[in-house]
């Protein structure tokens, strides 16, 4: 994909350049592993400090500052420390890590080895979803190439520090993206998430040892933090929302794709209408999913008023919401994994929710009754509504099921499955009621369930 002029590519700088290949020779020619050398000339705690100064926030979903997470590591226990890269990329709508893994795997390896050194990890893992078999092969090859150059393995660059990197493949279960489920999966078990507290990975992670789990994109940023210095890097983007972010744009837009943009320097409107080429002719924005299918939906034409964290008042239409971490939160949703799904007025909104509900019902691990049963009920009810048997009480029933899940489960899959239903009913109740009035009528151009 060629770069749009509103993009600011740091992570994907070379990914789409003609002739850029995923092998180490190409990466070295473009200055690769220079930052690893730079980092290894620093003390580990100095590298941690730079990451903290950069303010870089997690790109996997929760947006937690990476430097702060690293600080929470339990170093007193004396237990070995592990580093895990979350390459499960499975939140519907998200396809950014795929680009990094397939086009620039060495950037991830470099970011991981710098991070491993910084936190003094004994061993590092990349947990990659099963559905990226070539990605796993490319990463394995990259690791072997890097080992041959002594960028990982024993006594890296003569520093006395050693660390191996293992590529670990999943087996098509979404819940492995949840960090404690992921850890159980590496332990060779069912991916049943663990309850927090006490199982915060930084204290009790893999093998009950302190563990850092970070997303692919987050770990790549570490390379550029070392290159520029944390302070300088934090100037990219806006305060509290530093760096660039790769947005995955899909659904009803002319130019779906991945776009790397400086945080806070463009809006959802820019992404959809300018960068994304806008909607199809004659179509209107019906709904916007701002950060992966679990993020709360926004209705086309909504207006948002309120105050930002620093007290500045805002008055935004959907198109005015800045693309960063805090703004989608300020309007009651989240930027999540950076997956923006655009839904125009050609489809039936009840079918959209039924499609989403089918996903979460399929992916609940089944440990907690509210999530296991609730996700299934929400799926059954919305599917029934789409099969010609919608009832006037369905909207309230759905909302009440959602309300009984969120906040009552072991992991955030509970929220992830409840938020779509809760928000679709809150924002589109009229459409859900209308559905019951028009049973048997096809209300969208194409089926979604």
């Amino acid at each position, binding site marked *: 994909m060629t770069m749009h002029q509103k993009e600011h590519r740091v992570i994907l700088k070379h990914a789409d350049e003609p002739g850029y290949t995923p092998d180490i020779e190409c990466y070295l020619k473009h200055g690769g592993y220079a930052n690893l050398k730079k980092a290894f000339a620093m003390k580990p705690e100095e590298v941690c400090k730079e990451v903290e100064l950069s303010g870089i926030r997690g790109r996997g979903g929760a947006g937690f500052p990476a430097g702060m997470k690293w600080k929470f590591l339990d170093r007193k226990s004396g237990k*070995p420390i592990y580093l895990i890269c979350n390459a499960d*990329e*499975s*939140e*519907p*709508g*998200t*396809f950014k*890590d*795929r680009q990094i893994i397939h086009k620039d795997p060495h950037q991830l390896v470099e970011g991981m080895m710098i991070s491993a050194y910084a936190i003094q990890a004994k*061993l590092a893992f990349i947990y990659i*979803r*099963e*559905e*990226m*078999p*070539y990605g796993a092969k490319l990463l394995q090859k990259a690791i072997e190439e890097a080992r041959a150059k002594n960028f990982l393995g024993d006594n890296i660059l003569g520093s006395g520090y050693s660390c*191996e990197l*293992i590529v*670990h*493949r*999943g*087996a*098509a*279960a*979404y819940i492995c993206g949840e960090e404690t489920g992921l850890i159980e*999966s*590496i*332990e*060779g*078990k*069912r*991916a049943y998430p663990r309850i927090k507290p006490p199982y915060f990975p930084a204290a009790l992670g893999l*093998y009950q040892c302190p563990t850092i789990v970070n997303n692919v994109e987050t770990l790549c940023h570490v390379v550029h933090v070392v290159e520029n210095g944390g302070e300088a890097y934090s100037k990219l983007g806006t305060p509290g929302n530093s760096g660039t972010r790769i947005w*995955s*744009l*899909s*659904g*009803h837009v002319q130019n*779906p*794709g*991945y776009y790397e943009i400086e945080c806070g320097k463009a809006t959802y409107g820019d992404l959809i209408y300018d960068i994304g080429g806008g909607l199809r002719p004659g179509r209107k924005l019906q709904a916007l*999913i701002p950060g992966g*299918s679990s993020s709360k939906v926004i209705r086309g034409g909504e207006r948002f008023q309120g105050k930002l964290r620093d007290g500045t008042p805002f008055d935004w239409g959907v198109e005015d919401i800045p693309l960063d971490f805090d703004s989608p939160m300020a309007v009651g949703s989240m930027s999540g994994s950076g*997956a923006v*799904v655009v*839904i125009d007025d050609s*489809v039936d909104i009840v079918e*959209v929710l039924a*499609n*989403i509900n*089918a*996903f979460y019902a*399929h*992916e609940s*691990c089944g440990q907690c009754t509210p999530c296991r049963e609730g996700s299934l009920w929400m799926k059954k009810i919305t599917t029934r509504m789409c099969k010609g048997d919608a009832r006037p009480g369905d909207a309230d029933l759905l909302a009440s099921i959602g309300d009984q899940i969120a906040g009552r489960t072991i992991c955030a899959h509970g929220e992830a499955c409840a938020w779509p239903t809760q928000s679709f009913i809150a924002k589109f109740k009229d459409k859900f009621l209308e559905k019951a009035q028009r049973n048997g009528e096809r209300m969208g151009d*194409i*089926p*979604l*369930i």
Partner: protein
Amino acid sequence: MNLKPETITEIESLIPKYPQKRSAMLPILHAVQKDQGYISKEAMEWVAEKTETRPIDVYGVVSFYPFFREHPIGKHYIRLCRTLSCALSGSYNLLEAIKREFGCDLNKTSDDGLFTLEFAECLASCGSGPVMMIDDDLYERLTEEKIKQIAADYRARAAQSKA
């Protein structure tokens, strides 16, 4: 169960990479399924020995992860993404064409044993939907035309390897 010698070598080399043997569970199961096409009761017992776990632990894992299966399937595994972005770009409308061209129903294997068709959940390629995977390969921006072509290519290759 007769694992190929290279599968056994691969498995033996996997185990010492991990701090604990049980961590090699998923990679071993991947290797076994690649070799055998599925994971039999006998294989689970063997994997239990290798990972120093009980057969029920292995079964617990196999039955949890959608990719692991306990029964053989067709020669090629087709997965059509049905999740939101692909659905918005028409994946459900392509289901009929896929069934027709590959000659199999959803969650079934074609009579010639060549294809098994299932729905997949989001394959992390939502910007180029509708997408499907056949074995390790990803097919993007699917249309009826493309599906016809892909099915014809697979059939031609199958006929060739038979001859």
